């Protein structure tokens, strides 16, 4: 079936390794001739097959076959395909439901996704159901097309499984694009446009705004909200004559600290830096306040000792003690600057009034100037940068017109990939011009060829999209077969010829794998069967790496062999 052919092509194009292996000359079986899109063959000799005849839109088989390439997906796909097929059938048999199915198949297969396969399945079924075209076995690149059975309808599902190569998807895509009518293309186009609109109109500005906000916050954090390097903490007025800090408070925020202590006027205030043991020794029997740490950025947490004040006994004045590492005394206000690591040193402050028992209003303050402040701006700048990158991506990469997206196809290009008459395959699977006496392919075909190849991926994606839409939106009627100009005008390969070819392929495959043959014979969308068929077909492939291409070759070779045998 023509569709199969195009499917194969499309799949091949999507898959780099796919080849434009066209199995039996695909014809449009019933319905439109789906302009097949040729995919780039991976094997040089397969280049020849890029000019294979148009894929019949009615050829649901190729689509199916290709779909089946996704072995695993085949099952689900087929089921889906069944649904779609029915929908498609309803639309227009003539317009080659197969073709559309094939196109869908191509897309699905190209994407190597379940959906593709699914589409192919039902399409295959649909085509089989819709048309009496015998085309059924999709000549897949993988050569699984051998499953093409005389019975189109029955072959359809078989064809799907026949395609065991992932490359089929490409072909399917091609088929889809070729076979689909305006509606599916339009729908896909619309969908794509909406997607682009959303990406460019909503997501990108949103991300851009977020990026700007992040940068603004970052800037604010670097300037206005920058943490204050000056830290000045005090205790407030204390009720004891002695104050001692805990180890670790000395160099809390920085290694340089200005300590100051004030007392009631006239009283002598002394500040000393010493070890914790010595301070403890001095303070035994004294009432003192202990500074534990920072309560807020302005206030210390303090704790008052419960020692009963036994008076200031001692023969040595505070300032004269040998124990202090550093000491300074003054009246009213004493200040001391400490530089260096705190270690376990503590600060001991003593306020001594004329009357030893009188309470002095001792107030203690420590000031640091932090050399390093936490940098809160960096995370904001980093996030802002990320958002900018994301916005750019959303505006460009994520909303591509589909040129380079595998899964996206622009429907408008689908038409372009129609196979020309010359490109249709002859009976023996070779392009028409290969045979003696045939006219060489026209140069313009090359251009179209390349464009076709170019767009195959997108087409496949578009096809897939359409299929997705179709599936998710319910039984949407897609008139995928509404356009099949070529088929209408010039059916290059007769349906009968194609059927014969597929029959040969089927027989051949049957020889290779009995299951495959029987499976292909079944007309019901039997996933298992399809898979089996595909598996069998795949097994028959000579080159696992390049399934489609090799299969195509194999199929072609086998076809020729069969022909010879037949002769």
């Amino acid at each position, binding site marked *: 079936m023509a569709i199969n052919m195009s499917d194969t092509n499309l799949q091949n194009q999507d898959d780099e390794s796919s080849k434009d292996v066209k199995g039996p000359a695909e014809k449009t079986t019933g319905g439109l001739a789906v302009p097949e899109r040729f995919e780039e063959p991976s094997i040089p000799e397969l280049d020849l097959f890029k000019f294979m005849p148009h894929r019949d839109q009615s050829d649901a088989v190729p689509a199916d076959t290709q779909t089946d390439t996704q072995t695993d997906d085949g099952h689900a796909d087929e089921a889906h395909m069944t649904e779609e097929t029915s929908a498609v059938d309803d639309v227009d048999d003539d317009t080659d439901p197969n073709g559309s199915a094939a196109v869908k198949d191509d897309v699905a297969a190209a994407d190597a996704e379940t959906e593709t396969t699914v589409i192919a399945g039902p399409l295959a079924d649909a085509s089989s159901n819709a048309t009496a075209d015998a085309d059924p076995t999709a000549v897949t690149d993988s050569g699984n097309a051998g499953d093409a059975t005389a019975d189109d309808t029955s072959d359809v599902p078989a064809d799907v499984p026949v395609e065991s190569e992932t490359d089929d998807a490409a072909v399917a895509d091609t088929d889809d694009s070729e076979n689909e009518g305006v509606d599916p293309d339009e729908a896909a186009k619309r969908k794509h446009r909406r997607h682009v609109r959303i990406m460019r109109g909503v997501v990108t500005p949103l*991300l851009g705004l977020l990026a700007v906000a992040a940068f603004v916050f970052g800037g604010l954090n670097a300037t206005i909200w920058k943490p204050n390097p000056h830290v000045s903490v005090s205790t407030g007025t204390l009720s004891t004559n002695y104050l001692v800090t805990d180890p*670790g408070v000395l160099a809390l925020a920085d290694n340089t600290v200005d300590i100051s202590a004030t007392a009631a006027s006239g009283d002598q205030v002394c500040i000393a830096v010493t070890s914790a043991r010595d301070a403890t020794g001095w303070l035994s029997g004294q009432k003192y306040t202990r500074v534990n740490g920072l309560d807020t950025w302005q206030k210390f947490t303090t704790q008052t000792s419960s020692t009963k004040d036994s008076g200031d006994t001692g023969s040595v004045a505070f300032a004269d003690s040998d124990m202090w590492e550093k000491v300074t005394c003054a009246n009213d206000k004493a200040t001391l600057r400490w530089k260096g690591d705190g270690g376990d040193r503590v600060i001991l402050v003593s306020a001594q009034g004329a009357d030893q028992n009188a309470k002095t209003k001792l107030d203690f303050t420590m000031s640091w100037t932090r050399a390093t402040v936490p940098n809160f701006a960096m995370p904001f700048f980093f996030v802002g940068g990320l958002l900018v990158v994301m916005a750019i991506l959303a505006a460009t990469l994520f909303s591509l017109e589909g040129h380079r997206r595998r899964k996206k196809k622009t429907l408008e290009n689908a038409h372009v990939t129609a196979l020309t008459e010359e490109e249709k395959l002859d009976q023996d699977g070779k392009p028409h011009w290969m045979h003696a006496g045939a006219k060489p392919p026209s140069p313009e075909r090359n251009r179209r060829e390349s464009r076709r190849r170019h767009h195959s991926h997108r087409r496949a994606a578009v096809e897939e999209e359409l299929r997705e839409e179709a599936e998710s939106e319910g039984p949407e009627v897609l008139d995928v077969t509404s356009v099949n100009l070529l088929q209408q005008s010039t059916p290059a390969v007769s349906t009968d010829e194609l059927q014969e070819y597929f029959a040969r392929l089927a027989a051949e495959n049957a020889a290779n794998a009995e299951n495959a043959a029987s499976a292909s014979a079944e007309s019901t969308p039997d996933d298992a069967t399809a898979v089996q068929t595909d598996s069998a077909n795949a097994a028959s492939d000579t080159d696992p790496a390049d399934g489609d291409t090799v299969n195509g070759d194999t199929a072609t070779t086998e076809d020729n062999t069969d022909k010879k045998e037949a002769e």
Partner: protein
Amino acid sequence: MRKPTIVRIAAAALTVAMLPALAACNETVPKVTATTSSSTTSPVMTEAQEKKIRSKILDVLKQADDSKDANALAERVEGPELDVRSSQLTIAQATGNLDPHATIPDKISQTVIPTDSSWPRSIFTITTTTDDQQSQRLLVLNQDSARSNYKLWGLVRLFQGAQLPAFEIPKLGSKMGDADDSGLVSTPADAVAHYADVLQNGSGSQYAGDFNDDQLRSDLATLTATVQKGIEANAGTQTQTFAVQPDQIKVMRAAGGGDLVVAQINSEWTRTAGEGRESLPASDAEKALFGGGTATSSMKVTYVNVVALFVPKSDSGEKIQAVGAERQPVKVEAQ
């Protein structure tokens, strides 16, 4: 594509959600991390601090030396050294010259700083030899309580050729010992008592075998013999009694085991002249101390002896060794 769009929108939403979290980042006040350094096993002071303290003490001593006023000593001198020093100053007043034995060099060769957190604390500092090639001095600086300052408690002139044990470096600090430390050939208190007995009884003491010979004993022996000759000529008698002063003992543990013990042993030397003669002061020092007293037939001179003993570990197989001593008459009285 619905799914990818949804995914992208979800990612953007997540990013937005994260921003407020960042903005809400308040800078938290720093926490006091208690340095759990082993403050209990670190030396109580640095070498710089020890030098500062020692220089303060020496300043006071120098001042007193210059003024020959023993009253100024109380600020920075205590214990046996106070007695010794006061005596030396009194003698210097009388004689006009300070005993050269009283010289304390400014430079030190080693200082041993304790790690104990409690009081009293003592620092053992060993000076260099004096300018006139006298032996090194062992200074014992003592802080009785947290509220008092370090004072020079004891001064011992090390014997020539005496071997001191090794101590931990000042950065690590050493542990102070107790008078009843165990694991040694004898407790420090016992060692001092036995030494006093040996000083008194000489080789006749039952403990004589526990101690090595040392300079103090030989000097004393020589002195006693010399005085004995004179006394016999006068048909007089002499006796010396040595008494350990209780609680006047400082112990520092050496790095390799064993204790260095510095203790005060007072002695009284009673000389009685026979045949109705007067017993006179035997030396200039005693003369100075005696002052203008009236001599009688008997004279009692009280000495303050400060001895430094190294008591080895019990399993070392060594004997107790006296490494230094100071002997100073502090009182001369006619009986």
